[in-house]
């Protein structure tokens, strides 16, 4: 035996296992780059973690549910332990969901954890997306990761929809019917898609099995790939950070992955899981036994989709029932326009990073986050988008709003119809004003210091409030943001007096650039000269 081997034998078991793995997988070079990787700390950075953890929880609980769920639409007579439904005809899917809820010990808990986690997953993605949007974290080099995240959100919506449709209860069946009706509205191919999706006429006997394979295999498979890609890119780009002392565009400041971030993030997984488990213990979600099995000729009042489908529901409820009949064909605009709007509305937020980078012409990497106030037009656009989303969410629950607040359903619907157009405009203007006000306040603080609240009386009787100068850190943070100048088209004629050709797209870009970075859209940040002039003038203003 060589001495080298003797050394190996003496090494701790963990090291020997690591050596073994390194010899086959090369894990050391991977660990060298990542084991002490730095992650900046900010409360808003944990929103994405909530999404990741609820996704893992959904997969774990989902695998359990597949062990008991029967994805079949065969009609059976129920003889399980839930007395009120005994003897009723229902699909095997519904019956097996009742079994999971009433006969399998812990089945109801896992079902409710699964559903709650899905709701939190989508809500988490929505808020995480807003965080990334309002801080400008989508800028180069992260545009692709923004798209990955966007796709996860959209796929999450459809995975959720196919999931809650599986029990084949009265509520979810109504949602499926709505979807089928919307598909029928597609010009030319609507009836074909419907027949192919449902294996014939609605409801047929196939959709549960088909939705099942989409819900447990196709969509989660794609999503898992996207989640992995999303995380790899987060590691590769290194996390963004807010401006602060010692934090630049060229570094990343925070805690190392091992041990702090691992303990915090790992611990946070258990916190999220524990929270959802307790939620599932006390708050019932989707009590399908109270709804009963699906019947194509029955419906319950107050039918609502899960929240993330609510804005689509709002679009379809608020739209006037336009129909055009021409040459023996029907164009169902009343349903088709909401369907198109659904795609456009989501699409515009997906493409936003590319639109903004086109307007700025900025091709540099950005790792320092914007404070939302320092990008007033972007922030205002985002708030306008969220406003339209929220108004449609209200529209999706117009019956609930009407009954809870004793309003006329017609009035609520008209509010939504008008609000969908007026709301975003108002939100845009108001948000931009607020942002500019906050920018002015920041400037004021930099130049004149912080109001101390101490009132001083001068010998000649004048009262003044003492302003305290900011610390160097605060001065730096409040002036660290970049400010663009609006792009200019240049003179209309060139140096020889010949008219220059300016492309329409260039004119549009100049206009947008002016709207983004013109005098009305940002407060010039204080300059060193201004600062010196005021601070050297002694006395307080």
């Amino acid at each position, binding site marked *: 035996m060589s001495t080298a081997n003797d050394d190996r034998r003496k090494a701790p078991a963990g090291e020997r296992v690591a050596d073994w793995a390194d010899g086959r997988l090369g894990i050391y070079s991977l660990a060298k780059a990542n084991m002490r990787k730095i992650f900046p700390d900010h409360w808003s950075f944990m929103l994405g973690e909530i999404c990741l953890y609820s996704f893992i929880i959904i997969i774990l609980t989902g695998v359990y549910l597949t062990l008991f769920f029967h994805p079949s639409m065969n009609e059976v007579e129920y003889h399980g332990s839930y007395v009120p439904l005994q003897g009723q005809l229902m699909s095997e899917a519904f019956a097996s969901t009742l079994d999971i809820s009433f006969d399998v010990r812990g089945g109801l808990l896992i079902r409710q954890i699964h559903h709650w986690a899905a709701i939190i997953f989508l809500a988490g993605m929505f808020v995480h997306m807003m965080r990334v949007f309002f801080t400008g974290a989508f800028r180069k080099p992260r545009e692709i990761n923004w798209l990955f995240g966007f796709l996860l959100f959209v796929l999450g919506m459809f995975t959720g929809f196919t999931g809650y449709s599986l029990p084949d209860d009265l509520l979810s069946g109504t949602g499926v019917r709505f979807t089928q009706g919307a598909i029928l509205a597609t010009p030319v191919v609507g009836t074909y898609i419907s027949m192919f999706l449902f294996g014939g006429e609605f409801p047929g006997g196939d959709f549960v099995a088909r939705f099942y394979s989409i819900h447990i295999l196709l969509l989660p498979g794609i999503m898992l790939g996207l989640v992995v890609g999303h995380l790899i890119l987060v590691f590769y780009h290194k996390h963004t950070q807010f401006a602060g002392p010692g934090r630049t565009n060229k570094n990343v400041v925070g805690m190392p992955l091992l041990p702090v971030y691992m303990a915090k993030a790992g611990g946070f997984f258990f916190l999220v899981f524990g929270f959802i488990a307790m939620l599932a213990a006390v708050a019932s979600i989707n009590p399908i036994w109270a709804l009963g099995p699906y019947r194509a000729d029955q419906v319950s009042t107050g039918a609502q989709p899960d929240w993330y489908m609510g804005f689509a529901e709002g679009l379809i409820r608020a739209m006037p*029932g336009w129909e055009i009949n021409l040459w023996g064909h*029907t164009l169902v605009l009343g349903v088709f326009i909401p369907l198109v709007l659904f795609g456009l509305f989501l699409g515009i937020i997906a493409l936003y990073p590319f639109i903004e980078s086109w307007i700025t012409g900025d091709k540099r990497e950005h*790792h320092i986050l914007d404070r939302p106030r320092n990008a007033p037009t972007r922030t205002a656009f985002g708030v306008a988008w969220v406003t339209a989303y929220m108004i449609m969410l209200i529209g999706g629950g117009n019956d609930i709003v009407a009954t809870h607040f004793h309003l006329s359903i017609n009035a609520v619907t008209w509010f939504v119809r008008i609000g969908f157009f007026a709301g975003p405009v108002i939100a845009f203007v108001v948000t931009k004003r607020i942002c500019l006000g906050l920018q002015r306040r920041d400037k004021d603080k930099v130049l004149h210091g912080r109001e101390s609240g101490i009132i001083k009386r001068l010998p000649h009787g004048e009262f003044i409030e003492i302003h305290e100068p900011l610390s160097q850190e605060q001065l730096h943070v409040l002036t660290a943001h970049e400010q663009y100048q609006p792009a200019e088209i240049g003179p209309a004629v060139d140096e020889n007096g010949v008219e220059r050709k300016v492309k329409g797209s260039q004119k549009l870009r100049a206009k947008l650039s002016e709207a983004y970075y013109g005098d009305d859209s940002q407060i010039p940040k204080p300059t060193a000269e201004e600062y010196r002039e005021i601070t050297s003038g002694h006395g307080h203003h």
Partner: protein
Amino acid sequence: MSSQDTPEENLPAERAADDSEHGAVAVPGEKNPFADPGLPPHEHRIQDIDERAARRSERAVAFMFTLSMLATVAFIASFVAVPVDKSIYVFPLGHISALNFALGMTLGVALFCIGAGAVHWARTLMSDVELADDRHAIEAEPEVRAKVMDDFRQGAKESALGRRKLIRNTMFGALTLVPLSGVVLLRDLGPLPEDKLRHTLWRKGKLLVNMNTDEPLRPSDVAVGSLTFAKPEGLEEHDHDFQNEIAKAALMIVRLQPENIKDKRELEWSHEGIVAYSKICTHVGCPISLYEQQTHHVLCPCHQSTFDLSDGARVIFGPAGHALPQLRIGVNDEGYLEALGDFEEPVGPAFWERG
């Protein structure tokens, strides 16, 4: 970059050149009063300087991990001991499943305590000294880029794809065609629409059967102000195609005063003021179930389309695009309500071929 692109001077300057690379302290002075002061010195926590405080943290973390273990034991005990059908009263939730409550709470505590312990450990005992890492540009150095481009050109040249057009074109052809097999395979997912959406089970002479009592309806069974649901005779809940058929044939029947019927055709197709309309909403197909007897309006509970049953069931509010189809009814020799034919137009949501 075209000449029309943003000139460099419109972009904000890179953060001031005197900015620290990282961590190094720049002295704010005449040149830049807003300069980055650099990473602030580390501030010690109580646990860093007081071993007794650190001990307390250690005990707190250990306590939470222990609590988690106990909760897992309690989870297993509840699984075994609590009957699956037992319900308990928990304030303020009311009567809920005892097993679900016990399992959820114990599992929740077991998980939550692991998380709380780990986070507390990280926050109080692990080093909280902030470190800085350098970032590196994502895009490659020009030499790397040149090497990759050269390699690619070399590879492309060696493949002769550009030169041997016959190979290239036939290969693209083959690769384009082969997915067609996959598309063709999807053909049998379902039948073609044909005229399936145009017909229902209703025929001349089919009796109107009360959905609740399963008995054929007589005119006297339909009272003014009531809403009755009906299905065609012969369609039974146990039938193989019950769901598909009822999804089209479901009927709602109301009795109006004949003089209140504003629509001429509606009056003609009614019997003694009894009118029969498709129950399936023309918007996206929900069954309509809310009837306001004073105004003769029916409301779809899904998207609130409202139809006036005294005026040809035309849409008076909401997103539906056209009136509910009416079924022509009469009375047979034995005095039962019967259909006088199928609906004249397709029931349910509109579609391209509806016309």
